[in-house]
């Protein structure tokens, strides 16, 4: 039996997508410099999502034979789908370099051992690495005969570190990810990046001083602007969330009741979601509803410009889909998802951002972050953080907290520098939960007059 046969089985429906979806995954575990096992997984199966009148039905199985229609009379929420032109086609990402399991294990063990032997003042009770490589293959057939094929290999490395000095302790994660082959690992410069981070955390743990609470100017690093754009702009710009489809899970959006063209940030704020970035974690060229992918400008110079749409949300807005539907596995429905989301860089240099601060903070990395379910109130706890005095970066600070609203932050960004860096993230959404690989990024940014608090006695 083929996907086309399943489409015929659901012919009573007006809209049909049948998907074969396979993710092959190999994980290597290294604990404190020693191998701790290999896990080899394959999640392969089929699904059908079908829609007629206003009834949406999704079914999945490891066997095509199990996929059968279900007739129910319901008071339904979906009303229709946008009249977009689907695109048949395929997209693939090449693996330019490969390495054997032994080579990968040796590399990771060597890096771990070298990091554990660093001459620092803190102890490292634990340093663990998970190396994960996957290949995602999708084949989708629609009721009009459109066919889409995608093949995206990815690598993701997650490093968790526990450090302890006489004065304080820290636990943190560092993640690396992208689409492609082993050539990605060479570009990440793992050992150097991790060595620098461990040394600066060591400095924070031993020399970090308490922050003085109050309103201050804050320079956020590329990493902080990445998490902020994902949480404060990307999620609330998912059209299904604005419509309430996720209202019982991750919540609604501050965009409910707002209009396109409305100002939400300063002129320095332009936000893009672009699935077509080569070697990105969120790469695809045709979405899971058969719509061609493109860059979306969510905010243009501070003004609400566009939401992330699939065909069902676009119908309710009276718009076209912009190709944002993705499913994480064969047994998950396509949802409106981010891909690679970022603040656009500007013209300043990093030094110029810092020079403009009299008494403030440079927050380079973070430990904890979260945001409320309207995507308004948010908080970040700094890991590598430094005071800025009279335009110069000074002493390390012990875990300053910034807490404020999306509106405060976006409207107070007065300058962004000319760099653009991306960071790996696993974006969560939906129930059943769908963790999906994305990039998030941006330039270094300066935000004026931010509420800075002291951890533990905010």
């Amino acid at each position, binding site marked *: 039996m083929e996907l086309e046969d399943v489409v015929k089985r659901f012919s009573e429906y007006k809209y049909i997508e049948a998907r074969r979806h396979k993710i092959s995954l190999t994980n290597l575990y290294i*604990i404190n410099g020693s191998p701790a096992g290999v896990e*080899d997984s394959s999640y392969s199966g089929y699904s059908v999502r079908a829609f007629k009148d206003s009834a949406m*039905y999704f079914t999945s199985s490891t066997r095509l034979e199990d996929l059968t229609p279900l007739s129910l009379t319901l008071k339904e929420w979906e009303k229709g789908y946008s009249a977009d032109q689907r695109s048949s086609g395929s997209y693939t990402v090449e693996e330019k370099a490969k390495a054997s399991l032994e080579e990968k294990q040796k590399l990771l063990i060597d890096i771990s051992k070298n990091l554990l032997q660093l001459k620092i003042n803190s102890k490292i009770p634990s340093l663990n690495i998970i190396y994960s490589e996957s290949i995602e293959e999708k084949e989708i057939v629609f009721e009009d005969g459109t066919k889409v094929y995608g093949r995206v290999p990815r690598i993701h490395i997650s490093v968790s570190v526990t450090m302890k000095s006489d004065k304080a302790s820290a636990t943190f994660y560092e993640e690396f990810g992208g689409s492609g082959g082993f050539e990605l690992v060479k570009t990440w410069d793992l050992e150097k990046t991790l060595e620098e981070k461990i040394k600066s955390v060591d400095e924070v743990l031993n020399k970090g001083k308490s922050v003085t609470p109050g309103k201050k100017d804050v320079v956020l690093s590329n990493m902080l602007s990445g998490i902020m754009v994902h949480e404060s702009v990307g999620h609330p710009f998912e059209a299904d969330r604005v419509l309430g489809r996720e209202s019982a899970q991750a919540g609604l959006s501050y965009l409910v009741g707002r209009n396109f063209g409305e100002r939400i940030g300063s002129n320095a704020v332009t936000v893009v979601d672009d699935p077509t970035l080569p070697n990105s974690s969120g790469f695809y060229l045709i979405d899971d509803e058969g719509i061609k992918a493109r860059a979306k400008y969510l905010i243009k110079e501070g003004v609400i410009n566009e939401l992330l749409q699939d065909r069902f949300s676009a119908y309710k807005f009276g718009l076209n889909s912009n190709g944002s539907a993705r499913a994480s596995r064969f047994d998950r429905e396509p949802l409106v998802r981010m891909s690679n989301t970022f603040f656009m860089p500007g013209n300043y240099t990093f030094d110029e951002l810092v020079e403009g601060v009299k008494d403030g903070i440079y927050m380079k990395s973070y430990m904890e972050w979260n945001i409320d379910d309207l995507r308004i109130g948010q908080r970040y706890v700094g890991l590598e953080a430094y005071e800025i005095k009279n335009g110069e970066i000074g002493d390390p600070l012990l875990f300053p907290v910034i807490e404020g609203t999306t509106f405060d932050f976006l409207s107070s960004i007065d300058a962004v520098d000319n760099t653009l860096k991306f960071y790996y993230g696993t974006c969560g959404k939906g129930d059943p939960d769908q963790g999906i690989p994305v990039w998030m990024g941006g330039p270094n940014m300066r935000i004026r007059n931010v509420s800075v608090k002291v951890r533990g006695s905010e």
Partner: protein
Amino acid sequence: MNEELLKILESLKGYDEVAVGKLKIRRLLIKFVNSEVVEVQRLINENIGIIVRKGNKYLATEASGDIDVERVKNLFNVVAESSIVPYLSDNDREYKRVVESPLKDVIEKGEIESVLKEIYGSEYPASGIINVVETTQSLVTSKGFNGYFLNYYADGYVRAFNGEYSGQWAFYSNDLSPLKEAVKQANILASIDGKVKVDDGKYDVVLSPLVVGNLMSDFSYFASAFNVFTASSFLYNVKPGDKIASEKLTISDAPKKLRTRDFDDEATFTYDKNIIENGVFKTLLYNNELAMMMNAKTTGNAGIIYPISFGIEVKSGDVSVESLLSGNVIFVNNNWYTRYQNYLEGAFSTVCRDAVIVYKDGKPIGNAGRIRISDYLPRLLKNVEELSKESYAVRWWDAPLPTIAPYILVKGVNITRA
């Protein structure tokens, strides 16, 4: 019984230990928004997992659908010796339990009229998920174990919206009977309106069973011996007998009471056990390998390499919910997005949502909105003042571990707001 798995086991000779497991899940899911059905999902999933170990080498494989045994053999040849390897239990029993349940017809025939009646009948527009699930867990090992457990459960959550106010409730059960109460509770909580501003500071807080469920999912992470072994838990350096919590607090891993698992992934029969008993630490959650490394005995919580909880019970107290709310407290109906700054210290913050009600002299004076609990989990455990006699079995999207939880009054909780 389990002939397909025994055949795979038979084909894997020459190893010290082999385990072949299968988990089949059939699920009917109803997603609803504003009291209308968004989608009905019927999901069938079948995963086969194989563990092979020889000396200090092991390989764990898992596949949905068919599994490639030759790939297992070939890959095993190139894996390195490991500092930690799984050990199967010396259990050669044959075990079979088949639970009979009317939920079977809900899954197979789509008999969801009773569910729809409750959703459509919500006073305020309600959103949420109802899950009806059949799980079949099978495991055979080279030590002679042959186990089979067919089970049913239902869970769900309802979030009712009263304009800008909302209330949420959840359930985990052997049947769908708690749905009616979940809809009712969500509506009652959504009906409490009015606003009150809460400034940063320390407050006495009453956590609802949903919030307890969220925090207990995290607590189970900290109680896993793996996370203690890797210095990623505030229970690092804690010894059995240490007093780490309020004497009113008893937390158990409860796979039997919750009917979630009968045997673990290493063929150890599960049992309910206290992790904290009257404030005193009793045990971490172990599998065989972590127990061997940490001078303990398995608690029947494998997870290969990584022990996990199969469900938590927080023992209820002997006072009413009303008496917990009788003073000056903040009641937190629900929370989400709990994130940790520091796993070794258990420092975290979580965002409150839905009915976050300020009580003054026992009377509700308004909703505090989306304030944050910014504190340390060990400090919360120590500052538990009282627990309600009423308790609920809950599970929802941001409290994924089935948990039986009462309402809990915690003194001096650090609250912040954006």
